[in-house]
């Protein structure tokens, strides 16, 4: 019963991808998310709700992550480049799910390295868990025989959050920087 619309949707997205056009996406608010209150560099409190003039890209990761997180940051940096001056109204929020090893200062260095306009935040294990739960973000510490001690499996979504603090889209790792920039522009064009 659902097979035909699914095929039609896939064909449409393939056609769209082939033409290099950014697909129109439903940016209706999602029933997840909420305010985030964690610690940022300099031991200062970070509140997502203090950033009502910006659109946010929130993502969960950890600084020892050698590939996924650098890739996410590189993408955000590409999005900012595409946005030009509008990038000043976009804030990346890197939530570390590894408070044991990451400090907010360490996260700030990561963002600085990738020249991303953003903030690195973390907190106690309980607080981080509560934020991740609210966003439906998954992470799991995996003890391993690896010299790293433990690895962390985690969500790769970038949560697109509007100025009012509502999650409007889950950005997947296959979404292009062009598509992300278009969604950010759409949210910035909304009356605040």
């Amino acid at each position, binding site marked *: 019963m659902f097979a035909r619309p699914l095929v039609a949707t896939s064909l449409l997205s393939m056609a769209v991808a082939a033409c290099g056009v950014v697909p129109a996406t439903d940016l209706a608010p999602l029933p997840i998310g909420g305010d985030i209150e964690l610690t940022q560099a300099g031991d200062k409190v970070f509140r997502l709700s203090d950033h009502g003039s910006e659109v946010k890209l929130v993502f969960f990761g950890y600084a020892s992550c050698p590939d*996924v997180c650098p890739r996410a940051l590189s993408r955000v940096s590409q999005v900012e480049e595409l946005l030009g001056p509008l990038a000043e109204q976009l804030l990346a929020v890197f939530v570390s799910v590894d408070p044991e090893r990451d400090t907010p200062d360490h996260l700030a260095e990561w963002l600085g*390295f990738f020249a991303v306009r953003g903030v690195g935040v973390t907190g106690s294990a309980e607080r981080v868990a509560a934020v991740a739960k609210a966003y439906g973000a998954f992470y799991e510490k995996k003890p391993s025989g690896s010299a790293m001690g433990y690895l962390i499996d985690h969500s790769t979504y970038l949560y697109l959050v509007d100025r009012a603090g509502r999650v409007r889209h889950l950005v997947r*790792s296959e979404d292009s920087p062009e598509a992300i920039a278009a969604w950010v522009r759409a949210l910035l064009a909304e009356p605040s």
Partner: protein
Amino acid sequence: MTVSRSLPYGLCLGLTLFAGAALAEIKVIEPWARLQPPSSPMSAAFLVLENTGAEPDALIGASCDCAQSVELHVMAETDGKMTMRQVQRFDLPAGGRFELKSGGPHLMLIGLTAPLDPAKPVHLKLLFGHAPEQTLEVPVRDPRAPAGS
């Protein structure tokens, strides 16, 4: 007399040919290591392995003068969730090609002995099940630079 004199040569030749046939040949293409923020204790290295020999082989280990240890890791993304785990080997079927790339299998450089520097290549040693080990000079690439540069 003739036979006894040529026998060792024949034996040697035979052994050499046998050894030659048994050795898989592994071609390493475009190795690179990722530049990370200075305080990062980890990085990753990527490359393409081609087994041009007639026998299957495997990458079974690696070491680097840049890190305390190097591990073989695989990653898989399903439903927006990334899992990474250590494996003991990357199989290289005869005539096959195995790509270690960003977002996929990679060599994890753990406990960097000094921050990586784009001006200083690192030396990576690869150990194979059959083929002789190879030591490579691996450039450090800045992930912020445009692809291909």
